């Protein structure tokens, strides 16, 4: 059974304090690894798709990387507006499995 796990469950950072979030997946052949941001009471917002080990993508203060077993979301010099829950997901065909998320709080 395909599974996606994330760590840590919650993370508190001071503004400007860089860190990384982890997503581990067990899938029978990687299709895609996706990162989303979710604000309270709202739908997930697409951030990145990674398909191949070694692939990296960047957007503003966020960089996503992928290995054969896990993905990292690196947050450089975060700001309070980066506070949200970050979700990763993987798919097989048109069936998507989401992880439980990492709840990030960035304090001013």
């Amino acid at each position, binding site marked *: 059974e395909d599974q996606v796990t994330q760590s840590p469950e919650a993370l508190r950072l001071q503004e400007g304090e860089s860190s990384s979030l982890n997503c581990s997946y067990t899938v029978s052949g990687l299709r895609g690894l996706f990162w989303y941001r979710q604000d309270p009471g709202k*739908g997930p917002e697409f951030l990145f798709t990674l398909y191949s080990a070694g692939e990296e993508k960047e957007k503003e203060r966020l960089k996503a990387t992928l290995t054969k077993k896990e993905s990292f979301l690196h947050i450089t010099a975060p700001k309070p507006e980066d506070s949200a829950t970050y979700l990763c997901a993987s798919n097989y065909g048109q069936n*998507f499995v*989401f992880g*439980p998320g990492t709840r990030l709080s960035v304090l001013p």
Partner: protein
Amino acid sequence: EPEVTQTPSHQVTQMGQEVILRCVPISNHLYFYWYRQILGQKVEFLVSFYNNEISEKSEIFDDQFSVERPDGSNFTLKIRSTKLEDSAMYFCASSGGQGAYEQYFGPGTRLTVT
């Protein structure tokens, strides 16, 4: 910027009643999805829909649920005989053409079953 819309934003229903949740996907997208998220829990896949038929469904998506694309713009989720445990946020999402798995989510419908 195109976006996925959902109505209503909040639906309250009594146990045993039927509800229909509505979604308008992004107009040139081909794949449509429904997910649910019980409060404090993870996003769970329900069903994907392509070319006017279900392409995949999860174990959650049993005979109580059905989906329909009644016209060229709407995508609906019907839940029959609702139960207390159906209370959740229901998200619709859409994605583009073949191989484009980037999904764009709507704001959700909060379903409360009393």
